[in-house]
């Protein structure tokens, strides 16, 4: 690297790191923006976000469960008055009187009708049974309400069919058991259990990553670009500690604030899950079946630190090129967005922490948290994830130290971003390389 001031005297000194770290932290705790973003928001905003999500979900599902399906029946089948009665008395349906099939189809498309139930005479061998029919249900699969109508109509007709078969069988002296070779009993229990799993498996990890990233954001800008803007950068750079010590202290600072945000966030989930969301779910007739396993907390806390270590490192690398706080924010924001991309992977159903995934930053740690929350522990893969994260952190500290040794960055004459920096470096003839 050109222009480095690395030398044998530039070693890491933990005593210096400690003094520098204390200074960073002390100033941070006196900075309102940092306290709000790194401590208050993860604690207070978190339950609110979850509550909002949940309320949204229960509202939407409640809507599709509570509404009445508007159904058109162009022609009733001969000899089945009971079917008609059954449909008419079912409060989940209203029957729309429309004779013209074309008009009915148009209404279905327009969304003013949810389903069409047609009865046609049976054909072929099936026609031998008097009164037999073929029921045909038309729905618009793109609309939630119409899909719901399809389900309900199908259930209803199926139920009627079974009653009919039993009745006919009795009349002909055949027991129902002989008729019914196969029966299918369906019950939808997914909504109950999955509500808890959904919160823990998807919403919680996403918010967790967002909180850690937010926790890292301000400290990362503050201790690099912010320091330059305040004019303390040169004071620090002309003071005793080696560049490596300075970077290590700053990195420790960013990671611990980000990690703290993550931990507070997790502890808040653990504490608020039952008291806040239990009643909310109970009102909708659902129960929160998955509680937070307390055993998961240590794993999750380690994950918080690792995640902060990765995100903080990335943010510092970008912010170190900025001259002002504003510039720093602008440079970090794209990275901030990128950190949220791996979280989208979590939407893939059945994703588990494999050795391969354990090597991918953010994904590994987030999966670790998710599995721990659901009580699963893949210890070897978790080990890999931890090692991969630590290795990454070492690399980043080295890189950041190298960058800080570039005098352009210290003197602040550098104009622009990471990209500009490397462009300038490669276009120009690089000065002779000094020791690594």
């Amino acid at each position: 690297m050109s222009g480095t001031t690395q030398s044998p005297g530039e070693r890491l000194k933990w005593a210096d790191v400690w003094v520098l770290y204390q200074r960073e932290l002390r100033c941070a705790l006196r900075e309102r923006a940092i306290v709000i973003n790194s401590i208050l928001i993860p604690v207070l905003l978190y339950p609110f976000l979850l509550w909002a999500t949940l309320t949204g979900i229960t509202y939407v599902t409640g809507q599709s469960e509570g509404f009445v399906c508007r159904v058109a029946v162009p022609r009733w089948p001969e000899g089945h008055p009971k079917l008609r009665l059954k449909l008419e008395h079912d409060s989940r349906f209203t029957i729309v009187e429309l004779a013209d099939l074309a008009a009915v189809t148009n209404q279905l498309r327009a969304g003013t009708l949810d389903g069409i139930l047609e009865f046609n005479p049976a054909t072929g061998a099936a026609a031998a049974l008097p009164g037999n029919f073929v029921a045909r249900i038309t729905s618009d699969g793109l609309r939630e309400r119409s899909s719901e109508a399809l389900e309900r109509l199908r259930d209803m007709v199926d139920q009627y069919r079974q009653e009919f078969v039993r009745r006919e069988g009795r009349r002909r002296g055949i027991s129902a058991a002989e008729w019914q070779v196969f029966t299918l009993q369906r019950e939808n229990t997914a909504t109950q259990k999955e509500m808890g799993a959904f919160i823990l498996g998807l919403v919680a990890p996403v918010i967790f990553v967002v909180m850690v990233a937010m926790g890292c954001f301000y400290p990362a800008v503050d201790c690099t670009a912010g320091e330059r803007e305040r004019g303390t950068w040169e004071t620090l750079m002309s003071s005793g500690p080696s560049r490596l010590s300075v970077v290590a202290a700053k990195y420790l600072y960013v990671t611990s604030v980000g990690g703290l945000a993550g931990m507070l966030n997790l502890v808040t989930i653990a504490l608020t899950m039952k008291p806040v969301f239990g009643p909310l779910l109970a009102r909708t007739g659902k129960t929160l079946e998955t509680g937070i396993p307390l055993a998961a907390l240590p794993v999750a806390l380690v994950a918080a630190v690792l995640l902060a270590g990765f995100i903080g490192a990335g943010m510092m690398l970008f912010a170190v090129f900025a001259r002002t706080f504003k510039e720093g924010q602008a440079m970090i924001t794209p990275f901030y967005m990128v950190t949220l991309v791996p979280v989208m992977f979590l939407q893939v159903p059945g994703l588990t922490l494999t050795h391969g995934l354990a090597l991918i930053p953010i994904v590994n740690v987030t999966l670790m948290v998710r599995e721990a929350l659901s009580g699963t522990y893949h210890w070897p893969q978790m080990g890999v994830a931890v090692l991969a994260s630590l290795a990454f952190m070492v690399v980043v500290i080295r890189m950041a130290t190298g960058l800080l040794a570039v005098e352009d960055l210290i003197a602040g004459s550098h104009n622009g971003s990471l990209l500009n920096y490397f462009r300038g470096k490669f276009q120009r003839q690089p000065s002779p390389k000094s020791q690594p």
Partner: protein
Amino acid sequence: MIPPIRVQQLSKTFQDEGRGEVHAVRDVSFECAAGEIFGLLGANGAGKTTTLRILSTILKPTSGSASVMGHDVQAAPGEVRCRLGFSSATTALYPRLTARETIDFFARINGFPADKVKARVEHLIERFGIGDYANARVEKLSQGMKQKVALARTVAHDPPVLIFDEPTVGLDVLNAVEMQKVIAEFRAEGKAIIFSTHIMSEAEKLCDRIAIMHGGRIHACDTLAGLRAATGEHYLENIFIKSVTAASTPQ
């Protein structure tokens, strides 16, 4: 004996995107002894700050060498930094620290013996009359108070070498005079001091030797009496103009 500050054939060339190569410092050599104030006198862009930044290891020389208390700025930058106090318009204080915390912090990171830091901090607070606002945050202090805290932090670790880059810029007359007084006291304590300025009267009053710097070069370097004798001018202003124009005419 190597003098506390020694600069030999120092050059610094910047690669500036707009201007191309900028020769900020060219072949500059000087020394500064203990108990001496060495003045760097030059107009804007003369290369004073660049020279002093190299001395404080913020920049690396393109060629030549510089040492502080016998430690080379490139070979042992950490050693150099612990032995000097660097103060300039661009070395601000941490606004969220109190005055006391500031002095304590800089004493510690510059390697002042940990067990003596407390006593040192109290000594400096008393010496600079900071006591009344020692526990107030720096951001809340007036310019004059900040200046005192900045002085205290510069000497927090009791360094043998002090570098002041235009320290009186932006200060009112009273504060500027106070600053000069304190720097003279440091000299009396035996510190080797480099003092850069573009204000003639300041250099005249304070400096034991003056280097006239222009366009990255030192054109003349002597005591005020020596400069007067060499140029036949009495006022430093005229000496400065004469030295600078004399050097640039032949080119």
